C-alpha cells in the first residue's frame, strides 16, 4: 500500500491535485495563505552589510481614504524559496534521496547553484532548475513578494554594531590601532506581520506534503540568520482553484483597511494581535475571491484546515512513513519520457 493512499484528509481534495507528475500544465492551483511573523530582529536586504532594508513605496489600502502611498518592508520572492528549498534538501540528503550528477569523469551530489542539478530529486522536480546541459525544469512553487502589513516606519529600527578584537576592545592588541569596524544595520522589529501566498501548481499529494512540510519547518530567513532572522509561518488557509487567485499586495491592502477599522485609529497599532490579523485575513480572502473569474475556489480553513495540517504533522512525526513517501515520490519521476 502506498503512503500517498493513507492521506485520508488530503484525498478529499484529490481532484485539485495530480495523480502523477505531467510535463504539461493542467491549471490545478493550490494557494497557501500564510502569515509570516518575525520572532526576532530580522534583516531583508539586497545591498549588503550596512545598507538599508528592502522597502517599497506602495498604496496603503484599497479604500478611498487609504489610497496614499506608504513604505512597506518587503521579503522578496527568492528569499523565501531559497530558505524553504534548503530545508527540503536537508531532509532529502538525510534520507539519501538527492541524485548524483556526472561532471567530467566523476560523480557529484546534487547541489544548488553548481551548474549541475541532478534533475531527479524532488527538489529539482518541484522547485525547478535551469543550468548545465540538461535543459530546464520550471518551478511549480511560486512565491510572491511579501509586504509588511504596517508601514516601514512603525516596524523597523536601527542598531549600531561593532566588531571587537580578541581582547574585547576596539584596539588591535598587536599594534594598538583603532578598529574601523563600526556600522549601522536597519532591521525589522520582532512581532512584525507579513502576509504571503505560496502558489503550487499541478502538484501530486506527495509533492504537496513535501512543500507544506518545508514551509512549516523553515524558521530562519534573511541576513545573519545564524543569530537572528527567526520567522514563524502560520498557515491560515489553503485554497484550491483552477486559476490564479488574488495577489499578496491586494491581500495586504485589504487586510490593512480591515485592521484600521477594527482598531479604530488612523494608524496601525503595533505589534498586531495574531488572532485579529488572522480574522482580517479570512475576511479579506472572502472579499477578494468575489472578483475571481473561474470555477469557484475551494477554501479550506478553520477545522478542515486543522485536520489537513494535522495529517502533515503526523507524517513528519513518523520518519519511516515520511521516508517511504519521499521514496515513492522520487521513484515516480523515474520513467519520465
Amino acid at each position, binding site marked *: 500500500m502506498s503512503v500517498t493512499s493513507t492521506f485520508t484528509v488530503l484525498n478529499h481534495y484529490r481532484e485539485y491535485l495530480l495523480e502523477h507528475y505531467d*510535463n504539461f500544465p493542467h491549471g490545478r492551483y493550490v494557494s497557501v495563505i500564510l502569515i509570516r511573523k518575525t520572532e526576532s530582529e530580522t534583516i531583508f536586504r539586497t545591498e549588503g552589510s550596512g545598507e538599508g532594508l528592502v522597502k517599497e513605496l506602495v498604496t496603503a489600502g484599497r479604500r478611498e481614504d487609504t489610497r496614499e502611498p506608504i513604505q512597506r518592508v518587503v521579503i522578496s520572492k527568492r528569499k523565501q524559496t531559497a530558505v524553504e528549498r534548503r530545508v527540503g534538501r536537508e531532509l532529502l540528503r538525510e534520507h539519501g534521496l538527492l541524485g548524483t550528477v556526472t561532471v567530467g569523469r566523476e560523480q557529484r551530489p546534487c*547541489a544548488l547553484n553548481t*551548474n549541475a542539478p541532478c534533475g531527479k530529486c524532488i527538489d529539482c522536480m518541484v522547485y525547478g532548475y535551469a*543550468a548545465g546541459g540538461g*535543459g*530546464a525544469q520550471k518551478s511549480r512553487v511560486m512565491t510572491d513578494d511579501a509586504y509588511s502589513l504596517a508601514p516601514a516606519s512603525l516596524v523597523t529600527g536601527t542598531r549600531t554594531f561593532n566588531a571587537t578584537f580578541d581582547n574585547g576592545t576596539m584596539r588591535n592588541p598587536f599594534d594598538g590601532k583603532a578598529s574601523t569596524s563600526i556600522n549601522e544595520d536597519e532591521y525589522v522589529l520582532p512581532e512584525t506581520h507579513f502576509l504571503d501566498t505560496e502558489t503550487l501548481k499541478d502538484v501530486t499529494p506527495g509533492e504537496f506534503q513535501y512543500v507544506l512540510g518545508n514551509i512549516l519547518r523553515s524558521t530562519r530567513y534573511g541576513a545573519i540568520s545564524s543569530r537572528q532572522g527567526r520567522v514563524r509561518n502560520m498557515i491560515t488557509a489553503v485554497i484550491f482553484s483552477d*486559476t490564479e487567485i488574488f495577489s499578496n499586495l491586494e491581500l495586504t491592502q485589504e487586510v490593512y483597511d480591515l485592521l484600521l477599522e477594527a482598531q479604530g485609529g488612523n494608524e496601525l497599532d503595533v505589534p498586531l494581535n495574531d488572532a485579529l490579523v488572522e480574522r482580517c485575513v479570512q475576511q479579506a480572502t472572502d472579499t477578494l475571491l468575489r472578483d*475571481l473569474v473561474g470555477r469557484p475556489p475551494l477554501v479550506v480553513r478553520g477545522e478542515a484546515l486543522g485536520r489537513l495540517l494535522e495529517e502533515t504533522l503526523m507524517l513528519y512525526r513518523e520518519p519511516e512513513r515520511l521516508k517511504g513517501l519521499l521514496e515513492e515520490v522520487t521513484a515516480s519521476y523515474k520513467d519520465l519520457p
Partner: protein
Amino acid sequence: MTLAIYQVDLTLLEHTFFASREVGLLYETEPVIGNYALTYALGWCVSPYNWDGPPRYKQDLLPLNRQGRYVTPATFLPGRLRFAFSQFNAQSDSYYFRFDQNAIALERSRKARAMNFPQAGKIRLLAAESRARFYALLPGEAAPALPRYIRLGKFNSKARLDWQPLHLLTSEPQEQEQVVDFFLNAADLPDAMLSTLRSFTLYNIPPAPLVRQARLRGPFWTGRLPGGEVVHLPAGMHYGVETLP
C-alpha cells in the same frame, strides 16, 4: 468567424523581471511587455514544465494564428511606470563556500569552473503597481477565458488584468490611415501594411522589433469602449514567428 476585441489593463502587483538587456553586471528589464510573453502568460499555449531546447515560438504560437487569437505587446501608460533596482548573488547549500571567478566553489582545495550564467549582479525590474495596456483579439464564438490574474517574467510575478470589450463599429475592417500610438510587433503586421509604414519609433528588443507612433495605412478595426473612447487597431495581425530565425 466573428471577432471579439478587448482592451486589457495590466497592473503589476509585484516587481517583474525580464532579461531584456544585459550591460556588464546590470540586467535590465525594458519598459514594455512583449506579446509572446503575454501569450504564454495568458495560458493560450501550453509549454512544458521541462524543456531542453531552443525557444518554442513556432510550435506554440503558430496554432493560434489558425484559431484567430492574437495579443499586442503591452505599452505602459504615461506616468504609470516605475523601476526598481535590486542586487542578487547565488548561494550554495554547503557550509563552506568560496566565490571563484563567476562560480561558487564548495571544496577548499579545488577551484570551481566558471559558469555560463551570472552568479552576482544588479537587476532593474518593473516596479509593482506599474500599469500597462494591451489589446487581445479572440474569435467571437469562443467562450472567452479571460483570466483575472497572470504571472509574468523570470520570477513569475503576479499581475492583475482588467478586461473591457470593444464594441466594433463595422463588421469588416475599413481602409484607413492612422498613427498607432502604442507598441505593435513589427514581425506580426500584415505584409501589405508593413510596406506602408512611414514614420515610426523602432524599439529593438529580442525576439522581434517593436514599433510605436507608427503611421500605417490599410485595413483597421475601429471599436468603441464602454466609456465612449474610440480605438483603431490594424486588422490582420498574426504571430509572424515563421520569419524568426
